[in-house]
């Protein structure tokens, strides 16, 4: 466990030196701020546009950061051979994978905190009060960490056995498929075609249910979300990420570091 934490800590340190990370975070924050101007273009319900732009930019850039930095920091350990001296110590491959995952997740959490704070400030500037800070706000941003966990886990998995470019493509494809599946699922369930329903139920477990973890609407409409619903979704997201990390550990254990 100590070794895992040491690797995680070093990963956070390395991630915080990534220029890409800062570029994306700054861009996301700028978008949130610019939504104050964009919202002037509309009539009525300006809050909604500010909220949507803030949550969307946080989510999109958070996912991009998780995927790109996740893939980069794992494949770099092998490419630059920095992993050699680490893996030749009494550290199992699973420790290493878990350490990378936790470090990357902590980084994603830091990003999320920064971007959520920026969004809160922008919303506060618009509203002049903190009335938007209901359960909707915390659930919308809170559940993003579960989305990022899935992205990081997939990034670690694919980076542990393929090239960085392919790993990024695979990860984005699966995350995208997760979002897409949430939307097509109801139509497939209504379909008369035989085999469609079983397929949906298989995909329910195979693909990450990104839509289930996406609660941006709760902030937009100020919905009240029950703690139970939040906890269940969080458990699902973290569980999915955990399974992927476990698979990554197995895959990485079998890999020859040449």
């Amino acid at each position, binding site marked *: 466990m100590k070794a895992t934490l040491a690797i995680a800590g070093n990963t956070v340190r390395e991630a915080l030196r990534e220029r890409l990370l800062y570029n994306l975070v700054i861009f996301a924050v700028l978008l949130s701020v610019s939504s104050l101007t*964009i919202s002037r273009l509309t*009539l009525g319900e300006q809050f*909604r546009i500010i909220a949507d732009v803030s949550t969307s930019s946080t989510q999109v850039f958070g996912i991009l950061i998780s995927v790109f930095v996740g893939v980069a920091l794992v494949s770099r350990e092998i490419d630059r051979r920095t992993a050699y001296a680490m893996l030749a110590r009494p550290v199992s491959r699973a420790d290493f994978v878990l350490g990378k995952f936790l470090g990357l997740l902590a980084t994603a959490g830091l990003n999320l905190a920064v971007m959520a704070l920026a969004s809160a400030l922008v919303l506060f500037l618009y509203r002049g009060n903190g009335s938007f800070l209901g359960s909707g706000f915390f659930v919308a941003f809170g559940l993003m960490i579960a989305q990022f966990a899935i992205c990081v886990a997939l990034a670690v998995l694919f980076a542990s056995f393929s090239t960085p470019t392919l790993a990024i493509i695979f990860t984005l494809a699966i995350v995208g498929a997760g*979002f*897409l599946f949430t939307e097509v699922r109801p139509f497939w369930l209504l379909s008369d075609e035989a085999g469609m329903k079983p397929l949906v139920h298989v995909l329910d477990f195979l693909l990450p249910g990104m839509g289930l973890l996406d609660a*941006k609407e709760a902030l937009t*409409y100020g919905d009240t979300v029950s703690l139970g619903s939040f906890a269940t979704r969080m458990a699902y997201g973290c569980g999915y990420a955990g399974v992927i990390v476990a698979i990554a550990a197995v895959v990485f254990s079998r890999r020859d570091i040449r």
Partner: protein
Amino acid sequence: MRGKGTAVLLAVSAAAVALGRPALEPEAVDASRVREPAWLPNGKLLRLASFGQRLLLADLYWLKTVTYIGESTLSRGHRLGSLHALGDIVTDLDPRYGYAYQVIGSNLSGLAHDVAASDRLLEKGVRNVPDRWVLPFLLAFNRFFYARDYAGAAAWARRAAEVGKRPHLALLAANLSLVANTDEEYALSLSFLELSLQQPQTPELRDQIKARIVKVRTYQALDAVERAIDAFRARNGLAPIVLDQLVWSGFLPRIPTDPSGGSIEYEGGTGDVRSSVIGARRPIRVSE
């Protein structure tokens, strides 16, 4: 040499700008002209491909809609032919976008004169955002103002009163029922007003509702008498001299009492019926 080259470049470029800009004037005028959005996707397909960003896309299309309405209004005479498509896209992307139903729905009937499309969008809104009372209210307006379907208008107004917890709308619904002037509407309106009375209301409003109940009952009674007079006239060629004739000839079981507390007065010469308290049945009317 180098300085000369730069000078030539500058001269040629400046000439191109000087000659080209005036030639582009038609394009410049055209660029600011209102035009139909060149291509509008299917909102449902767009939602499938939104990768979780459907709210943001809905906002983008909403902004586009706002601009479209604004430009079309400024340019006058524009038909707003794409408004219903934009409304569908926005509300397919975000079915809970109540404000979009409201604004696009009212402009579809008001500016684009497409009441059917307005009704369709507003009804979709009522399904998806059932707690937004403005949507059934706008539907009531569409029914009343454009379709002259007063019973339908009254029904939507009652719906608006119900979801919006706005008893004023119940009063409005009752007025619409009076315009509709059917037995069914009187019955529905009365039961709805009685229901409103059971909810906690301010004393002023309670009095207003009670007064409205009396008015509806009175109108109902007057209407029954008027219809009997019409039937009498149809058979005998002229109106009865006294109301009792209606009972004798079997057109009315009895002369109703005036629910307003006065009496029902009849003028044999003109055939006009009125209540001694609230006067003749004279619901608001839209000039034909």
